[in-house]
């Protein structure tokens, strides 16, 4: 082999890494990129709630109860005279956190279990797939309900309930990826070159399964937000004085005949946020799929 000096001369400029390529491909999809920026902006506002919220979300003002939007309270006030906008900003903290944290937790369970089942096969695979089969045969809403009754309401328990319910999807996905990857000629080629299991996981499994898993997790976030709302709606979710978007919709909807603004604003914020996440996920899916030219 030639000296390294000569080698360096003919070596070209370094090609962009995998991460850079994905980012470029994502940014090229303008709409999805805008959605992503809005998601970040929303998260920043929620995180900095004390700074951005015009009022204390718990401060009551009995002189203006039930008021629809008015100057100083752009989204109106609720039955106790609390500012709806401020409550929404604070509620966003919990809603967004539940969406994101629950999916990361689900990933933490589903990824290793799915990968182990796919790679080891045998009784491990049998046990994991049977367990998934049992969990998925129960309609999701019942799993949530059972779990929330057993665990009790509150943020942490809700995250736990969602992680326990949602890991099956990721585990299935990863297992399928591992199984199909095992059969590919490029993994065979890697084995023929002398690559061991560790090499195949690092070089091929991570590279190929990362995309679908990331997309699945992203799509899971709005679903988890929806589930949070559903459970809060049933009184199994976030307990006052804490608040979340779902809880606001659930609590305020009984006043819909008299005070429309209490339902409409939280419902809109939730829907729009879910929309943003779905679009972000779709953009990510396209960016991570090398067969789609953009």
């Amino acid at each position, binding site marked *: 082999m030639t000296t390294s000096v000569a080698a360096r001369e003919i070596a070209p400029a370094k090609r962009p890494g995998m991460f850079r390529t994905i980012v470029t491909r994502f940014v090229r999809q303008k709409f999805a990129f805008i959605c992503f920026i809005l998601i970040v902006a929303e998260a920043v506002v929620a995180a900095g709630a004390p700074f951005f919220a015009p009022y204390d979300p718990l401060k009551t003002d009995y002189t203006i109860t039930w008021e629809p939007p008015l100057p100083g309270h752009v989204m109106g006030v609720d039955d106790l005279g609390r500012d709806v906008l401020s409550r929404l900003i604070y509620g966003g903290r919990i809603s967004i956190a539940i969406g994101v944290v629950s999916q990361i937790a689900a990933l933490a369970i589903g990824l290793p279990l799915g990968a182990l089942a796919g790679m080891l096969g045998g009784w491990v695979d049998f046990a994991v797939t049977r367990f998934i089969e049992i969990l998925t045969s129960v309609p999701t809403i019942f799993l949530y309900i059972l779990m929330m009754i057993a665990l009790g309401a509150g943020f942490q328990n809700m995250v736990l309930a969602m992680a326990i319910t949602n890991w099956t999807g990721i585990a299935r996905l990863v297992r399928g990826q591992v199984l199909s990857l095992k059969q590919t000629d490029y993994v065979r080629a890697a084995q023929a070159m002398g690559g061991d299991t560790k090499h195949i996981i690092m070089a091929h499994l991570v590279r190929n399964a990362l995309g679908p898993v990331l997309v699945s997790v992203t799509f899971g976030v709005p679903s988890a937000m929806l589930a949070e709302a559903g459970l809060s709606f049933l009184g199994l979710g976030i307990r006052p004085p804490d608040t979340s978007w779902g809880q606001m919709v659930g609590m305020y909807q009984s006043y819909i*005949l008299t005070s429309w603004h209490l339902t409409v604003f939280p419902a809109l914020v939730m829907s729009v946020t879910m929309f943003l996440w779905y679009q972000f996920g779709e953009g990510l899916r396209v960016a991570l799929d090398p067969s789609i030219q953009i």
Partner: protein
Amino acid sequence: MVRYILGRLTGLVGVLFAVSLLTFFLMHSIPGGPYDMKAAQMAQMIPQDLLDKINKLNGLDQPVWKQYLIFLKNALKFDFGYSYISSGRTVVEIFANHWPYSMQVGGLTFAFAFPIGLGLGILSAMKRDTLVDRAITVLMVIIQALPSFIFALFLKLIFAVQLGWLPTQGWAGPKTWIMPVLANSLGPILMLQRYTRGAMVDVMGSDYVRTARAKGLTENRVTLVHIFKNALTPVITIAGPMVSNLITGSFFVEGIFRIPGLSSYLGGAIGNRDYPMIISSTLFFTAITTVTYLITDLAYAAIDPRVTYVKAR
């Protein structure tokens, strides 16, 4: 084939057993019994000896595993015990009274959503990449971000509260059906449209459709005989997830429109830890979903000659 069905039924029993176990122990892992809760809610003290008596009557003084065995034994005789909160009514009675309403909501929703979802899917596949397709896609993206209970609230606000065209709640006659059915339809429509479009597009690009065209068949005949037949067969595979979706959807829709169905009844049961109701309905809906999956698989095998569940010799 018989062996396959038997195998699947065995699996179904196994799943139900596992789910009953899971549900039962989850429900009994909570500190405090159902009557503590009720007493607290009524803000009145039930004398301890009376509480003991009630607990004994319901078998709540036994160890959990014994309670489970009793439950299992009774369940096999189709006896799911008494509902704790509605005095004197058995779980089976409550199901018999309320389940028909939920069935009606589900049935009407399906009857409404099926042609629309299918139609939109076919339309967007046939007009692929045109304005029509894009408009439908945008509509579906909006639907995706619109949970059924939020849509139900918006409908109620506009058509019942603001315009006063429709009654705000109840389940008595076509006028009261419109909003619940519409709200509950979003999920199934979305699912059907996506799946139908995908399946159609796949089939339209296949070699046999190209061959059919090359043979000189008229476009209508190609569409009818080759595209529909092959694209719509796989659509039945989403029946399982769809039933699951309808059950979930009706939970909220029944609550919002005060429909006396099983789901809205369950809402009350949940808050009051009505174990027999919760456990029974979990098992009931699990059974429904699982059976749907089984029937779907069998129907699919009956229709699609490529699927066989019995290995050829």
